[in-house]
């Protein structure tokens, strides 16, 4: 398992890691820096001992690096600059009301995610943004699967409620 294998594995999971990092940080640039930091830390660990589950392992490193970062800043990310979301977001997936999200709403989604309590915020970032399974997320955050499911469930409910209230307020 050499650096080429590492690069193949890392780039295979890059979209998920980027979405995770985007959820864990304030700005697109911070997210890219976090992915880069994850890459270097993972590369050096990979050379010593390649993991069995690379996806979960990369995410664990990313989450720990993000935690260090927001501990250093003594604040969780809540700010949304969001210009990239105005351009890049996926909006083909209709919500249950049958309406596509506007780009502005995508920014609000990210803001709402950022305002959740940390355990819910991390669970949403991992499962809904990063696409990790409940089992992987449980392993990554070191909590029982049932706890992770409860956290993500509560976080999703808050998101739905906050954004529904905002839509009502906009009318």
């Amino acid at each position, binding site marked *: 398992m050499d650096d080429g294998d590492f690069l193949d594995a890392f780039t295979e999971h890059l979209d998920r890691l980027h979405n995770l990092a985007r959820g864990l940080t304030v700005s697109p640039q911070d997210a890219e820096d976090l992915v880069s930091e994850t890459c270097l830390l993972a590369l050096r660990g990979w050379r010593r001992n390649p993991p069995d589950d690379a996806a979960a392992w990369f995410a664990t490193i990313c989450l720990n690096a993000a935690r260090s970062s927001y501990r250093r800043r003594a604040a969780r990310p809540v700010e949304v600059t969001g210009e990239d979301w105005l351009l890049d977001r996926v909006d083909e*997936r209709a919500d249950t009301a049958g309406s596509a999200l506007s780009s502005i709403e995508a920014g609000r989604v990210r803001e709402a995610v950022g305002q959740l309590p940390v355990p819910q915020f991390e669970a949403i970032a991992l499962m809904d943004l990063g696409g990790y399974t409940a089992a992987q997320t449980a392993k990554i955050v070191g909590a029982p699967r049932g706890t992770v499911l409860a956290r993500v469930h509560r976080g999703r409910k808050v998101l739905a409620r906050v954004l529904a209230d905002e839509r009502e307020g906009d009318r």
Partner: protein
Amino acid sequence: MRHDPERDAARFLGGAMSPDDRAAFSGHLLRCPDCWSEVEQARRGRLLAESVRTAAPPALRDRVRGLVEADRLDVDVDVDEPARHGRWRWLLPVGLPVAAAAAVALVVALGGSGTPEPPSLRQAVADYSAERLPGAQLPEQRAPDLTALRLQPVGAGGGSYAGLDVDGFAYRDPAGRRVVLYLSDNAFPEAPGAEQLSDEDGPWIVRRGDVTVLCARLPHALLVVGEDDRLVRSTAQALGVL
């Protein structure tokens, strides 16, 4: 089991129920407004969160490749201060130094005019031919945007050429053609035999072997180096110095 809408909805949506429990809960949902509301809200929240997923930017993929390569070459890469240096880390040298090519370039770069080539220019041409950057220092500025010419940055690094502090920015287009920009706070000395492209203090151009060098003095001290003469000129035009 006690009726707990939140717990049951979380397990239902999380795939944590056995097939029998799942079938039973599905039937229960139709009769229980509390459970229905739990599932409905959580589904909506999940769709909202999932809707902001995006693909990683191509530049991030390049940055990751550059990081792995730079680390393999044992280039000093700072991981402790990503926010400050992060923008540039992926741009640290990505090309292998090729000493033989550099040596050939040095010979070619004498210019054949009998007048000694300025060392800074000789070094720039040699480094271009060796696919080497001036050094591993973080550049003072961002790489100029040359996407209009379909040139993507592939490496950057700062160093010194004969006492001139120089930042090098390497680009490559989809056809594989390379262009390197060298920026300095101080003017590059003129090459022997250079052709003036405008007035006396304006840009000049010279050919050294297979390599074209275009130099501008204003508004920045700049060398544009590449094998494709037209691409070098187009790059200078895109930068507003020609």
